[in-house]
């Protein structure tokens, strides 16, 4: 249900669209000049529902969000996804939804989108590598999709899988982690109103490097939990296998809630640096649950966050 969630980020604090559009127009224009033709940005707006969010943070601009990505299917360098993800075919796209549900099957993107209301969600994003961003996502609550397919009472977890296409993803020839990329959530986490499936950002369709055409966004967990380019969602009764947890369970727990007191074994998580601040950007203190403690803290009542990380 759209509009259920009210965050403390304000729509008015998003970089005005004309500001970054002008910049893109300039870039596109210079390219167009070189080609000897005139071209403006022909973007298809998603017309997502605007929501009145409170804000203490400033969203990153389009360039930062779309040029600095971790999407190892396209290479391990931050710039690789922006360079190579265009090879991914995102239309047509179907998501296999199966497991402990009433209506399993292949759901096409049009079908999924026809039954939800897209809205803007301005979320903090905290990467496990100690950098962060603020992103104005466009998406819908995962709960809406799960309610539609009918979750059975025996389901306890949701497992997700990214597309695995060696022909389109140059990075998967190297086994940096075990492919396909997999992630998982506990059912109550998946049903939480903060958890969304995003299909765009800045009111534009999702760029491939950010996980087109549909990705998960769980703002209180480290970024790698927010799995990209999802092709499968399964409702299961056991804690699902996840990619980074399989690679190193000590470093990447199943929950992976943002927690300044729980160090990554190889680095401290006390501080982070917001991308886009230039060469002299300051370190800022990391917040428990990435600042969403009020909304999600109760999900983990009684749990030892250092043990069950």
């Amino acid at each position: 249900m759209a509009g259920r969630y009210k965050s403390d980020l304000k729509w008015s604090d998003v970089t005005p669209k004309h500001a970054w559009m002008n910049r893109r127009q300039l870039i596109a224009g210079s390219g167009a000049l070189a080609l000897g033709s005139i071209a403006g940005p022909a973007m298809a707006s998603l017309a997502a529902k605007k929501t009145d969010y409170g804000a203490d943070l400033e969203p990153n601009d389009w360039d930062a969000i779309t040029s600095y990505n971790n999407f190892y299917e396209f290479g391990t360098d931050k710039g690789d996804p922006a360079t190579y993800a265009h090879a991914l075919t995102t239309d047509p796209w179907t998501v296999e939804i199966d497991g402990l549900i009433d209506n399993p099957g292949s759901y096409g993107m049009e079908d999924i989108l026809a039954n939800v209301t897209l809205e803007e969600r301005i979320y903090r994003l905290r990467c496990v590598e100690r950098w962060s961003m603020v992103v104005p996502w466009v998406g819908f609550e995962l709960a809406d999709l799960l309610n539609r397919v009918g979750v059975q009472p025996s389901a306890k977890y949701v497992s997700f899988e990214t597309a695995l296409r060696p022909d389109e993803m140059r990075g998967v020839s190297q086994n940096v982690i075990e492919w396909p990329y997999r992630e998982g959530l506990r059912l109550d986490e998946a049903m939480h109103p903060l958890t969304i499936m995003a299909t765009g950002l800045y009111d534009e369709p999702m760029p491939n490097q950010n996980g087109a055409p549909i990705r998960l966004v769980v703002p209180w967990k480290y970024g790698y939990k927010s799995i990209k380019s999802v092709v499968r969602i399964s409702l299961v009764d056991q804690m699902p296998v996840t990619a980074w947890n399989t690679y190193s369970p000590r470093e990447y727990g199943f929950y992976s809630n943002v927690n300044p007191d729980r160090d990554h074994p190889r680095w401290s998580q006390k501080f982070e640096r917001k991308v886009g601040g230039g060469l002299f950007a300051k370190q800022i203190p990391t917040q428990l649950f990435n600042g969403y403690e009020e909304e999600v803290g109760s999900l983990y009542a009684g749990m030892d966050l250092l043990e069950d990380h």
Partner: protein
Amino acid sequence: MTAIQHINQTIGRVPPWLIYVVAVFPPCWFLYQGLTGGLGVEPIKALEHKIGELALQILLFTLAVRPLREIVGINLLKHRRALGVVTFFYVLCHLLVWLVLDVQILSEIWADIIKRPYITVGMASFLLMLPLVATSNNFSLRKLGPKRWNAMHRLMYPLALLGSMHFVMLAKGKQIEPLIYLGITIFLIALRWKGFRKKNFAKILSGWFTTASNTTK
């Protein structure tokens, strides 16, 4: 004259001071790029990684000077000191970027050095460089005598291993690039090992290169 003699003649004409002068440019260029957006939206990490990788490359090149002469016949001995000092300069730049721009907070710096193995290892490599750079002058060479000086400068081997381990240990996921650097480091050090030489491996390699260079006469 063989191709290798040509190369040696050209190298011989390059004065060592030129290496110091040229070496100053890459870090300055990276810094300029970082200030003007050329290193992307997160220039601090980019600058740190670029200078770190450059340091590792020059370090390996310095290690390659002796095998290059003994096996291939290319003589860079005259420039080895400059290469070593430049390695130190790059490592120092890398360290300064990490301290001043990246971690910034003094308590965090200290915590990182003692608690994070990849930082501990990197720092150990840096510390082992200090006595070497301090004695990279003719005065120290005379004072210590060639035997002791040489023995001391074998610290290059452990510090090179620590340096490439530092890169391997910070990688996320199974990445190949750091392992290639570590492999090259081990190979270059192994070439000095007597047992390795007894097996005539170095001689065989050397034989190949001699034949190759003779055929290009």
